């Protein structure tokens, strides 16, 4: 991870600020902490208390808490989210490509059915994988630890992120393609450098 954090500050001023949408709202809660919704704040406090500066609270807004972690820590954080905070399923896993940062972000939206106080809440857990200019899906450095052993429900979602972004999930029992044809030989299609013809 250290190599990424070193390249990031150098890359950021050069790139347009528009390249980093998700990271910015962190500034807002810090500026006016009085307005933060109390329940959501208590959730993020619990995670901060447990992991300290390993995580970064991205945003705290109504019904949504955004947490950002290093890829080495995501497994531990997810385990705490399940066992310590009663979240039990993943609603959505989206990849977001940031070519300027040379990173691909994977965002897990985690919810809870069994704890009724968390019914409205979604925990937005984001982590970033290293991005390769010429991807060889599964064989390059674009890898993340899978969360499938913690949240069974990510199985198909992670398969989709793998084929669409080339992020290989280490430890996932079934990293086959899901939606794309088996003989797809082009770039992973949701990367920004895969262009639609005629656009």
């Amino acid at each position, binding site marked *: 991870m250290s190599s990424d954090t070193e390249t990031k500050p150098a890359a950021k001023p050069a790139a347009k600020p528009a390249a*980093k949408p998700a990271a910015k709202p962190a500034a807002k809660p810090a500026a006016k902490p009085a307005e933060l919704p109390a329940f959501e704040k208590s959730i993020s406090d619990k995670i901060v208390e447990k992991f300290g500066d390993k995580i970064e609270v991205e945003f705290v807004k109504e019904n949504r808490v955004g947490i950002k972690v290093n890829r080495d820590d995501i497994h531990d954080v997810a385990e705490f989210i399940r066992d310590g905070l009663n979240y*039990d399923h993943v609603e959505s896993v989206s990849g977001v490509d940031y070519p300027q940062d040379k990173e691909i972000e994977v965002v897990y939206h985690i919810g809870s059915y*069994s704890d009724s106080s968390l*019914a*409205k809440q979604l925990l937005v857990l984001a982590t970033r994988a290293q991005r390769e200019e010429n991807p060889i899906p599964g064989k390059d450095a674009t890898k993340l630890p899978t969360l499938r052993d913690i949240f069974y429900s990510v199985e198909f979602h992670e398969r989709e992120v793998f084929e669409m972004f080339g992020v290989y999930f280490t430890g996932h029992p079934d990293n086959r393609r899901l939606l794309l044809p088996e003989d797809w030989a082009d770039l992973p299609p949701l990367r920004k450098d*895969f262009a639609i013809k005629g656009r």
Partner: protein
Amino acid sequence: MTAELPPGLAIQKVDERIMTLNVGPQHPGSGHMRIIVQIDGDYIVACDPDPGYVHRGEEKMAEYRNYITNIPHLERPVIHDSCNALYPYVLGVEELLGIEVPERAKYVRVICSELNRCIYIMYWLAIYGIFLGHSTMFMWPAGDRELLIDLMEKISGARVTHAHFVPGGVRNDLPPNFEEVCLRQVNYFEKRIREYAAVFYDNPILISRTQDTGVLSREDAIRLGTTGSVLRASGVSYDLRQKEPYDVYEELDVHSPVMKEGDSYARSKIPWLDMLESCNIIKQALQKMPKSGSVRVKLKPNPKGKGLDSVYKRVESGRGSLGCHIVSDGKVEPYRLKLSVGSFRNLIALPYLLKGEKLGNMPSVYWSLNYWPVEADR
């Protein structure tokens, strides 16, 4: 040998006893997808769903179009539930742009989305009926669906692909006298679908084919992250209209049906109960709706997000929670748009439910998942 294969491909051993059977993608019983089942005699030992035959890259397309021109193509995954398919996107864009929607528009949206839910479920019920060999249950819903399609046509001008929801409200106000016509049609529709119980849901043949097949326990329904009717048939009372009410659902009395059995019968009955509840919601909304007022906030051309932001909105569609994750970078197009759809989330339960089931039970289990392949593939 496996190591030399490109990722995504795998070699399977062939067993003498186990037969591999491809159901679909041309087989009508599988929808637009392939279900690879391995059978030992008449029993399914493993099942591997293979979706993707109708993958159209909606998410990629969305990155090339602005927030308004995205509207018509985003409802394409489920054209007969198009209002619900657009709903989370529209809510998300409103949060990004900071738009407050007029009260009457919120009620119109609720009415449209409940009408659409019924239209979708009737379509699904027709298919479910025909694949269980009950052709009356194909004809009746396909015919009665027209009542509500006519209503949607009066509202939006289109029979199925309405594109009626826009960020800031709805495209047009309701036509004159709509409340009266709607109430009459919905009352008749409700009376009509109650008759389905006698011919279908209380039918001993249906009960014998679906009861105790494909049982999904409460714990597994939660663990697999299923949603919508699949989740509620397994005894988890979770409906976003109650749990995270959007627009005016907070002011309406929503009693989402729940059953405990978790078998195919419960999963097929929940959507029908949902329709009765939808009729109830429509009637409440017609009563509480402001009689006049604006239904749309005028937007500037090419609206942009305020800057760097991400938003995740979700609604209860005909197939369960439908989420839309929009990442904006302050341009006129979304930087990334991800649809988390109920069909895709419920698909994970299919291999789980079919294991150990008879091959003949496959249609009843598969279609009871309330699965729509086109939506799952996006």
